[in-house]
């Protein structure tokens, strides 16, 4: 039997330190590698946002310590505008790609898919190992770009040419931008390795009885996000290659004739800056959902588990994920309403864009219906999932403003947009990561995280996120533009000096509160209470492994068979308030061999 053979090979495989912790083929170790790397990146990204916030709250104030920390970026203790833009660009890049993409789908895609569908590993363990190490290479290249002479990329995370293509336009568009493009290229390769693996594994490796319709919602969400990644990332790869050629080999994909930059007439001819925007956002909008969907999936599963109720409308939840994913490919133009794109195209994109609100609303109502008359357990994972629902509502609703083109004329590229995507993409996805970590930590490390510290972490973070980003809506409504080094040049932007200071203080405190999480996370790895096999009384297959912290191969004996759908809590028939997917009560006649 195939599964027994797999057991044999895994158990007798001799593990060295290198094969177990470095070039591991074990999907669980690879998931953890992604998680720890993303955690390091998250700290760097957060530190960059602190530097930006300090500049925005105290513009032109001399802070000698800033020079100590940043060196030539802040000569005389004042952050230079070109390096403010570099910090901003790198903050966006790091958070979107290295934290929210790699940290979410990389961590939970790898860790959960085989465990939740009942497989011993991914379909292609070797490619899986390569996927992490190409991601690592991309990380190293991106990190290197901080140390080149002219500084890291500074044209925004959307790297619009010509600004990003011409070194004379901004210092960051020299070697820094080249490294940025190389790093993202390598990152895309890594992401494609991952996506392929997730899709094939879900399609081919499910245990007996695990039909698609019985997969936990997290797996569904990751599966759909992986398809999005497979279709969207290659488009960015070709765009990045073209931009790299424009930058370094004087091709003209995106650069028109007659540019006059830095006192010089450039010899480019025939390109279109708007073409880049189409390519970038054709990737960029699905990317939002590559990030968001896994978080929404985790949220669904966590809410059902701790409400002790079946996920309300499982089919509708899957259908809404599919609808969001489909629509995400035909909405990219809403980033370009006032880009010079034909306004008629804008009309089409308004329709598709705002339609996304419908499946999103279905998700919110289904979560609420799941909570209704539940028996809620307020674990840190549950709190983060409830917080995610709140953030998703807030950020989703502001999307209705921005998606309606006439309003976007005023709000485009203002702080309203900054508020919107930090709620719906940034913070909501981050809460998905936290909910996932608190929920699956016992399975990852065989120990429990501290409950009280987890709750404290949640409350400080949740309130902090609202204090940081909600006021930005007001600034945006007044028309305060984003990507400004300082708001000192215009009277109407100056009125928000106090608010900017307030936001900065909130950001510093909320950021510092993450230390609680770090202590809890790393401390619990060694000092946490030993976990039971199924500490949350959850229903999916990962909680059936023989050890609380399974080894390579996941199950020592046979892989359990699945008899029912996921999230079966408080069923009328069951003796307890949960029935595991592998529970054969009522199906005793159904033998494995059949």
């Amino acid at each position: 039997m195939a599964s027994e053979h797999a057991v044999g090979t895994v158990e007798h495989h001799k593990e060295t330190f290198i094969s177990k912790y470095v070039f591991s083929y074990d999907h669980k170790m690879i998931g953890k590698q992604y998680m720890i790397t993303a955690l390091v990146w998250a700290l760097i990204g957060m530190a960059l946002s602190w530097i930006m916030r300090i500049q925005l709250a105290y513009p032109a104030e001399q802070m000698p310590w800033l020079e100590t920390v940043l060196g030539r970026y802040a000569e005389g203790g004042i952050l230079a505008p070109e390096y403010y833009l570099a910090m901003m660009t790198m903050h966006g890049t790091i958070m979107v790609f290295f934290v929210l993409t790699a940290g979410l789908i990389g961590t939970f895609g790898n860790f959960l898919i085989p465990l939740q569908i009942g497989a011993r590993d991914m379909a292609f363990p070797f490619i899986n190992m390569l996927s992490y190490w190409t991601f690592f290479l991309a990380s190293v290249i991106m990190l290197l770009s901080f140390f080149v002479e002219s500084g890291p990329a500074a044209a925004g995370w959307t790297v619009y040419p010509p600004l990003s293509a011409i070194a004379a336009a901004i210092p960051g568009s020299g070697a820094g931008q080249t490294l940025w493009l190389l790093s993202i290229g390598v990152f895309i390769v890594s992401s494609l390795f991952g996506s392929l693996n997730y899709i094939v594994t879900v399609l081919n490796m499910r245990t007996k009885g695990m039909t698609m319709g019985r997969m936990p919602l997290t797996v569904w969400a990751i599966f759909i996000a992986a398809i999005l990644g497979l279709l969207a990332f290659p488009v960015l790869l070709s765009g990045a290659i073209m931009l790299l050629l424009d930058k370094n080999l004087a091709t003209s994909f995106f650069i028109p004739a007659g540019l006059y930059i830095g006192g010089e007439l450039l010899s480019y001819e025939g390109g279109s800056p708007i073409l880049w925007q189409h390519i970038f956002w054709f990737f960029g909008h699905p990317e939002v959902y590559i990030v968001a969907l896994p978080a929404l999936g985790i949220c669904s599963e966590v809410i059902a588990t701790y409400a002790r109720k079946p996920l309300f409308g499982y089919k509708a939840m899957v259908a809404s994920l599919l609808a969001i994913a489909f629509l995400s490919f035909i909405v990219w133009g809403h980033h370009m309403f006032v880009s010079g794109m034909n306004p008629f195209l804008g009309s089409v994109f308004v329709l598709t864009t705002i339609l996304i609100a419908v499946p999103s609303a279905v998700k919110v109502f289904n979560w609420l219906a799941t909570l209704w008359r539940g028996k809620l357990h307020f674990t840190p994972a549950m709190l983060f999932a409830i917080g995610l629902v709140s953030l998703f509502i807030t950020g989703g609703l502001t999307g209705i403003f921005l998606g309606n083109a006439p309003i976007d004329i005023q709000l485009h590229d203002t702080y309203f947009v900054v508020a919107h995507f930090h709620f719906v993409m940034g913070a909501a996805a981050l809460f998905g990561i936290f909910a996932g970590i608190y929920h699956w930590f016992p399975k990852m490390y065989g120990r429990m995280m501290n409950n009280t510290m987890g709750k404290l972490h949640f409350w400080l973070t949740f309130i902090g996120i609202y204090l940081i980003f909600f006021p930005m809506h007001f600034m945006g409504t007044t028309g305060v533009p984003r990507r400004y080094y300082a708001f000192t040049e215009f009277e109407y932007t100056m009125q928000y000096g106090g608010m900017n200071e307030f936001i900065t203080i909130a950001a510093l405190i909320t950021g510092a509160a993450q230390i609680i999480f770090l202590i809890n996370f790393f401390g619990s790895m060694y000092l946490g209470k030993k976990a039971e096999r199924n500490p949350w009384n959850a229903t999916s297959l990962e909680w059936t492994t023989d050890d609380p912290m399974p080894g390579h191969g996941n199950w020592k004996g046979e892989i359990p068979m699945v008899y029912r759908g996921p999230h079966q809590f408080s069923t009328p028939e069951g003796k307890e308030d949960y029935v595991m997917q592998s529970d054969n009560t009522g199906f005793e006649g159904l033998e494995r061999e059949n």
Partner: protein
Amino acid sequence: MKTSGRLDGLLFVLFFIIGLIACIWYLIRHDPGFLPLASEHGGFIDNLFVVTLIITGIVFILTHVLLVFFTFRYKGNGNGEKAFWYPDNKKLEIIWTIVPAVIIVALIVWGQVGWAKIFHTNPPDDAFVVEIVGEQFAWNIRYPGEDGEFGRTNPELITRTNPIGLDRTDPAAEDDIVVLNELRVPLDHPVLLKLRSKDVIHSVFLPNFRVKMDAVPGMTTTFSFKPTVEGEFDLLCAELCGLGHYRMRGYVVVQPMEELEVWLSEQREMN
């Protein structure tokens, strides 16, 4: 698995109520915070914003009241007692798919009526035409002069004194007026902005007029509007264009046509 949730439920309620009061208080005090309106189509945009704010505000409050109430009300004791079995309800799913869809389609249709007025309506022939050419980090404003036509430009001719590379051999260029950062437009008269850029993408943002359009190198974009208030207003850049992006400051002066013509003829003499 015992987890006390009394405090968490209470905190959700408190946070929601305090946050909501703070938010409403702020909105009332700042009258959502719009800058004084100075254009015709801007009224439509502001109204659409306010109606969207009311609709989304209601949805926000309703969903959050439910979220917060449920977290407060349905606390389990952690002893394995069962929750209410309620896995599905097709009727509910259909209702909360269709209701948002209807509301949203209404918002889209209304929005498109205004969008069409702004972009799909040709500006009248007598519109006051101005060209804005963005550069790092300033706005070159060009008026066509009495002939109503812009002269040829050629980037090879760009010098310190000829910032947009105006080709003076072209007869149409003779009476063109080029000034820096000073956009003058007539009161209560349609204006057509033609936007270009010399280097990178900029975006002309006139917050009081609810006007924003990218100035893209290699092409000309347009935006037409009608100023309705006399006075001086801000002109900003809204697309990241380099280290001076935040201080790419221009001015908009709205004045009666007669005064504007006097100013234009003064400029012509100086040019």
